[in-house]
């Protein structure tokens, strides 16, 4: 009896780590626990980063004051994801949106729900849908998704620089 030669084996690999955020991301995660979106402003270029890092990647200076931004925003661009992948936790198809929360100068990738996938559009005004308060933790996942609000779409020129 001859067996097929073994040319390869599948070895599941994992990488477990304890995440230690710095001062600025810690502030953001503590804000999340209270249902607030906290960013930081660069003292040089005045841009508000959400979530913040310790310093401005463009100016190289330390961020100053913490700034609370709104949980409403504009969907500046998005992808409709139809492809399966390892670690996926959301049902397909889903809309992975890039949202500029009002008051922020950066965009965050957020799940878009509450609207048929083929009706999602650039410039759509959205609001965060938070998990029930008792489930809030130190994570951005407290925002379950964003959903459309009853407002006219934002003018293209108002969000062009974030696309």
């Amino acid at each position, binding site marked *: 009896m001859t067996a097929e030669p073994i*040319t*390869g084996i599948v*070895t599941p*690999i994992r*990488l477990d780590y304890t*995440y230690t*955020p710095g001062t600025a*991301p810690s502030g*953001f*995660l503590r804000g999340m626990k209270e249902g607030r979106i906290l960013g930081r402003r*660069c003292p040089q*270029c005045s*841009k*508000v*980063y959400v*979530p913040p*890092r310790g310093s401005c*990647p*463009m100016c190289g200076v330390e961020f100053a004051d913490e700034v609370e931004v709104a949980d409403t925003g504009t969907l*500046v*661009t*998005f*992808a*409709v*994801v*139809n*492809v399966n*992948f*390892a*670690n*996926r*936790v*959301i049902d397909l*198809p*889903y809309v*992975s*949106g*890039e949202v500029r929360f009002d008051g922020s*100068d*950066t965009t*965050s*990738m*957020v*799940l878009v729900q509450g609207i048929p996938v083929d009706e999602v559009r*650039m410039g759509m005004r959205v609001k965060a849908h938070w998990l029930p308060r008792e489930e809030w933790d*130190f*994570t*951005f*996942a407290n*925002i379950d998704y964003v959903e459309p609000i009853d407002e006219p779409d934002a003018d*293209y020129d108002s969000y*062009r*620089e974030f*696309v």
Partner: protein
Amino acid sequence: MAGNLAAVLGTGQTKHVAKREDVSIAGLVREAADRALEDAGLTYADIDAVVIGKAPDMFEGVMMPELYLAEALGAIGKPLIRVHTAGSVGGSTAIVATHLVQAGVHERVLTVAFEKQSESNAMWALSIKIPFSQPLVAGAGGYFAPIIRGYIRKADAPLDTGFQVVLKDRLNALKNPYAHLHQPDISMEQIVSSPLLWDPIRYAETCPSSDGAAAMVIGSEQAADASSRPVAWIHGTAVRSEPTMGAGRDRVNPHAGRDCAKAVYAAAGITDPFREIDCAEIYVPFSWFEPMWLENLGFAEEGTGWKLVQDGVTALDGDLPINMSGGVLSSNPIGASGMLRFLEVANQVRGTAGEHQVDGARKALGHAYGGGSQFFAMWVVGKDKP
């Protein structure tokens, strides 16, 4: 031109396929290196140092593979340098090798890049979970699809532009025996009806997952003059990067890419890239990146790159052929993909590209980008000594 002159003395690559089960990673890189040396008419004894690059180690789950590959690459007792710049790494690796020669440190350097995607799960490695972002990023396509949507909106580009790019590249690949995808029956209907994976990106508009390696021998002016084989003179190199998360960053037309192009043209003495460059191999993992990079590289005004595609300017017989080899859309051994761009244009100006040779190519651009479009590496090579 900084430093001493340097030239490509020889090139080698493997036949790119989904799964190379007959060789290990060491066997794969050895195959490309053997071919590059043979092409240069040299042996491992002629090599002073080895510079190697690949995508992040998480892709294969082998940490610092360069250590165990030293023997396969004939690097025992010689300097061995590893380069890390995500998807642009194949380009940056060739540039580090070039700098070692231009600086007069070494006479002949072997440079190698590879990926063995069948031993890895790149989508998994790219879809990490961190507490300040939602678990939404579905691999590279999930990251780049919103940027492509942004380009289409900004440039008001016709929606079939991406399809035209794929059709061109896959037809070009039929002329390249090393290309992974050989699809003689490829048609517009097939492309248009392929599934929308990451809307607006269709399946046919994405690069394959490949096992493959690329290698080049870079030599000094003296080594090039002594060679009996055709060489490609390196007229200029440039690398640039920018902060991935910077506010106000233009991800469709990144500043670092524009700066890198300016720097490489200045180094090569080029003032009008569209007229002076005969052909280019640029890093296009998703079809729409061809028009986007045409603008970023200064071949077209902002918002008009798609017109060059639609007018057939970038076809093999066009005024500015792009990705004659079939490009990343036809073969994607990630770490090697950037080096393949550099290698293919070297072969073009050497006149050794084979069936996808552009007649009379004298000056050509190789381009690679990586990460979230924050790393860029470019070189200009020429038939003539600069």
